[in-house]
């Protein structure tokens, strides 16, 4: 993977980009205040570890594990949750 591409994907990744079983750190919730509030109450807090789990047929909604609970989110919502991926491949 190219360095710039890697940076790019790190900067712009959202929950939708996670592959099954992949873990990422939630960075920012790009949602209206009340909606973000509710998601944070459920554990979707900046800094939290989120793991992508299975998704429904067709890929929508997607199921995510956060803490020890699992939640189904529609892609339109998951797309608004920005994540930081831990470095997957060692840099060349």
């Amino acid at each position: 993977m190219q360095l710039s591409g890697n940076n790019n994907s790190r900067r712009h990744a959202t929950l939708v980009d996670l592959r099954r079983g992949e873990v990422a750190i939630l960075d920012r919730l790009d949602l209206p205040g009340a909606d973000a509030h509710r998601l944070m109450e459920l554990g979707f807090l900046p800094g939290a570890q989120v793991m992508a789990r299975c998704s429904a047929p067709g890929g929508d909604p997607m199921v995510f594990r956060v803490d020890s609970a699992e939640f189904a989110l529609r892609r339109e919502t998951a797309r608004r949750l920005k994540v930081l991926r831990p470095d997957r491949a060692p840099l060349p």
Partner: protein
Amino acid sequence: MSDCRDCGHGCALEAPPAAKSRYQATAPEFVALIGPPNSGKTTLFNRLTGLRQKVANFPGVTVEQHTGWAVLPDGREIGIIDLPGVYSLSPRSEDERVACDVLYGRHATTPRPEAVLLVLDVTNLPRHLMLAAPILALGLPTMVLLNMADDLRSRGGEVDLAALSSQLGVPVALVSARQGEGLDSVFTFLAGAMRKPQPMELPVLQDVPRCREWANRVGNRAAYRAPAPPEWTRRLDAVFLHPVAGPLIFGLVVIAVFQTIFTAAAPLMDGVRWLFHVSGNWVATSLPDSAIRSLLVEGIWSGVGSVIVFLPQVLLLFLFIGILEDSGYLARAAVISDRTMARAGLQGKSFIPLLSAYACAVPAILATRTIENRRDRIATILIAPFMTCSARLPVYTLVIAAFIPDRPLVGVFLGMRAAAMLGLYMVGFLAAVTTARILKSSVLRSDGTPFLLEMPAYRWPTVSSLGLRLLDRSKVFLRRAGTVILLVTVLLWVMAHVPVHDGHAPPIADSLAGSLGRSIEPIIRPLGFDWKIGIGLITSLAARETIIGTLGAIYGMDPESHAATLQTALQHDLSLGGAVALLIFFAFSMQCISTIAVVRRETGGWKWPAFQFVYMGSLAYLGAFLAARFIG
């Protein structure tokens, strides 16, 4: 249970030293059960009060407050208020608002609780502990109950109760509401061992990240070790949410339910029919020929009896619904069908109310309280009665059994009758989805709130829970048969026997009931219905299955079809087109007073129920007309 509230001073958490705990002199009168959704509040409520409020394995089953009485060992009674689940005390949906109103003493009919039992799922402790902050801030005597102790142990989690108790400044107990474990400590608390919480430093309640930090810190200091993720849930989800296997299993489950409802219920229904036949004959022979005998045999026995015959079938349906709900599969079904919901413009939260509408539209409409957006909620209320409720099941079964041959369609797997039934359920569902789509793209357009559904861990449905559901359902069914349907049947019998000529009842066609049916005959003739069906349509406005009682009574009194069974009488009176028209009519129309009443209450006026009644009625008439016209 730990009793070390006072050691809070010695701990690292800052507690004002002056705080002297005040003892509650007597036991409180009312105690509220509060906690996050699906943490087991209602299971605990049922344990404490001996009542049987509905429980199931998905979030948001309880949408209203319920009060029951817990009897203490010394005989005193304490009111326990079961509340809908909340994630915080900043309510966003109707059910959460109810919970908060009760806690703050703002609810119109429920007294303000003097103490709180906070029920948390111990397998999700840090997140659930966030709710402790606003609850402790209320300043009421509080006990924290860590529910699902059995799950914590079996999956290798741990928590130090004494440390947690001192961190929170209130007593803490580990319980398992499902197994009845740890309830002694709850009774001890209720019996008066309660104090105001030790004042603790709580986070700013509106600041979610701070609250969470606080909860994490409390959990860490209580040496909380989260249990391993439920392994079986992961494995089952890999199958049930598999891109190919998932929808396939979903479809197979649905087909199996319908096939079983037809085949497995038949012998039981024959048994009930035989009972009514034998007991009816016995009454007929042991009473002298009189008006009373006629009322009993021709009216009540053939009317009410013909409805009760369907009890086994309705119970079988509820058994299946119960298994799906209690196991946790329902939440997965909601995820699988979310795309369909999304296309109709509905949010995923509408799925669970709509699914419970397969049992009955009334609880389904109450369940829409979990939908935060008002327009989404109204759209869901408006389409819920299109879902095939259990009161339609007897009508469908009767007409299908009379007109559709009992032949296999796909081997032994799916018979033609079950397929016809499945088709009717689909017709109702499609009407619902199409209506939603029209409404959501016009008068009820909304931005929508994000769809969020917590996926509960799978659990084995317990025999007692399923048994209680069936018992409750039998009561509801029999109560309806014994009240509404009995009343309608008696009224019908009287109307079929007036006006009296020369001391004799008129032929039924010329009676008051007959002329009422004849008066609407011009309207229903295009649908292929005669006046007898017409009378049934009028009475079924009270409740759908009343039409069966009505037809049973009419055919019981009508000398022409006297000896025939309800089925053969129907075959005589209806063409195939008329039968299909009747099925379509019942699939679409809103013949249920209870539903109309609950829609009026939940939407706060007559506008929506009136619209719904007219819309569904017009669709029913049009659909039936087309069916009669083209099938002939």
